[in-house]
């Protein structure tokens, strides 16, 4: 499917959607925080520290969601050679990395009162840590080339190889964790979450998703504009613009 990448359609659509995603993010997160911090009851076991859940759980969801989105865009980019798909993957990676970092940080902050240590080689935390390295690997690879298209294509292959490995890593870390560590006492999702806790959790989850699309659109637009800047630079470099002499004969204005 060849179309010398004319991204204007994406620019129009994203231009229209940006204000909506921005507004819905602010509203959802504000509502989620308000309910989570003020209205929802403390946990009978953990007391107030359970409120960390309202950021830890959504960031963990987003960490996985972003990598799936990244791998999906990479697959579309590789299979259908659509340049925008590659840009979409490149734009999604930093957001995913930030969410993974937050998932780890809030997880460890929540772990301290519960398990008494900042870091716990719990199967989930460990596989999220490995996922964080996969993100860093992708971002480093994409920016390691002079030619940006070369970078995103290499990154797409890595994203797919990484995506195939995520379940394998999860499986091997679970196995490894059960060998070394008794299954962690604290069960993250508890028996059944009380609706008063579930609603803020879902609000935050959806709010973080719209946040993702908001920042993702900003970053994709930046990539598109950067592409146009590079095109301008190249035209400045071409010393001898070829003037068509009108009768289809190419006349090079400079020897």
């Amino acid at each position, binding site marked *: 499917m060849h179309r010398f990448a004319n991204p204007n359609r994406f620019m129009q659509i994203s231009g229209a959607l940006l204000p909506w995603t921005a507004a819905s993010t602010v509203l959802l997160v504000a509502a989620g925080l308000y309910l989570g911090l003020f209205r929802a009851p403390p946990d009978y076991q953990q007391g107030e520290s359970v409120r960390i859940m309202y950021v830890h759980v959504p960031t963990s969801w987003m960490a996985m969601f972003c990598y799936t989105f990244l791998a999906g865009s990479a697959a579309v980019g590789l299979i259908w050679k659509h340049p925008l798909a590659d840009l979409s993957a490149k734009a999604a990676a930093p957001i995913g990395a930030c969410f993974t970092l937050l998932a780890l940080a809030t997880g460890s902050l929540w772990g301290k009162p519960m398990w008494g240590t900042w870091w716990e080689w719990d199967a989930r935390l460990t596989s999220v840590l490995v996922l964080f390295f996969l993100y860093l*690997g992708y971002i480093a690879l994409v920016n390691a080339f002079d030619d940006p298209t*070369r970078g995103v294509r290499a990154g797409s292959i*890595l994203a797919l190889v*990484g995506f*195939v490995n995520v379940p*394998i890593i999860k*499986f091997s*870390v679970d196995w*490894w964790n059960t060998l070394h560590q008794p299954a962690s006492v604290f069960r993250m999702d508890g028996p059944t979450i009380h609706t008063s806790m579930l609603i803020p959790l879902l609000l935050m989850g959806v709010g973080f998703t719209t946040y993702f699309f908001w920042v993702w659109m900003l970053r994709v637009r930046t990539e598109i504009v950067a592409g146009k800047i590079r095109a301008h630079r190249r035209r400045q470099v071409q010393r001898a613009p070829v003037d068509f002499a009108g009768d289809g004969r190419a006349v090079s204005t400079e020897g």
Partner: protein
Amino acid sequence: MTRLACILGREFRLAQRHGMDSVLVVVFFVLAVVLFPFGVGPEPNILARIAAGVLWVAALFATMLGLERLFQADYEDGSLELLMLTPLPLEGVVLAKVAAHWLTTGLPLLIAAPLLAAILNMNVAGFLVLILALLLGTPTLSLIGTVGAALVLGSRRGGILLSLLVLPLYIPVLIFGVSAVDAAIGGFGVRAQLLILGAFLLASLALCPWAAAAALRQALE
């Protein structure tokens, strides 16, 4: 098939002419392992407990040493382009490279490992399983590493970037490699771990040449 054999022959001749490389890899492996007693202390039973982990992590790093030069030399002097133009599919060329890499790094590690296990005072029960696990694990490390080497081809920061890409993917092999040896020492069955290592090998044998070939095509565009 003769073309594959022809490429293999050339790789071995090149490896043989560059004999020093595989020697350096083994020297690095030995050095890395010997450093641990200085760090952790010569206490025999501590060393015995961490022996399997130390050997496997050192083997991981040693394997990665040989990866960066895997395609770089051919890429720079133009042979890689011509190899891509042979009627042989690119995956065949990748397999030849993996075989050459394994023979110059994986095999020497396999030979050196038991000696180092002895130095680390590892329980004798673990020796045979260590060799079996390394036999199944090191080719997988070479295969996954080849994908990394192909991906970083032509990038500015080859070496460091390669390790950042490849190490997370090595974790499953590391986990099951070490647990196989620990299980053997502990007297438990090792069949499950070895079977899983075998599964990793077969899976990467199927997937990695394809991914590395795709990466090479990007690099040679």
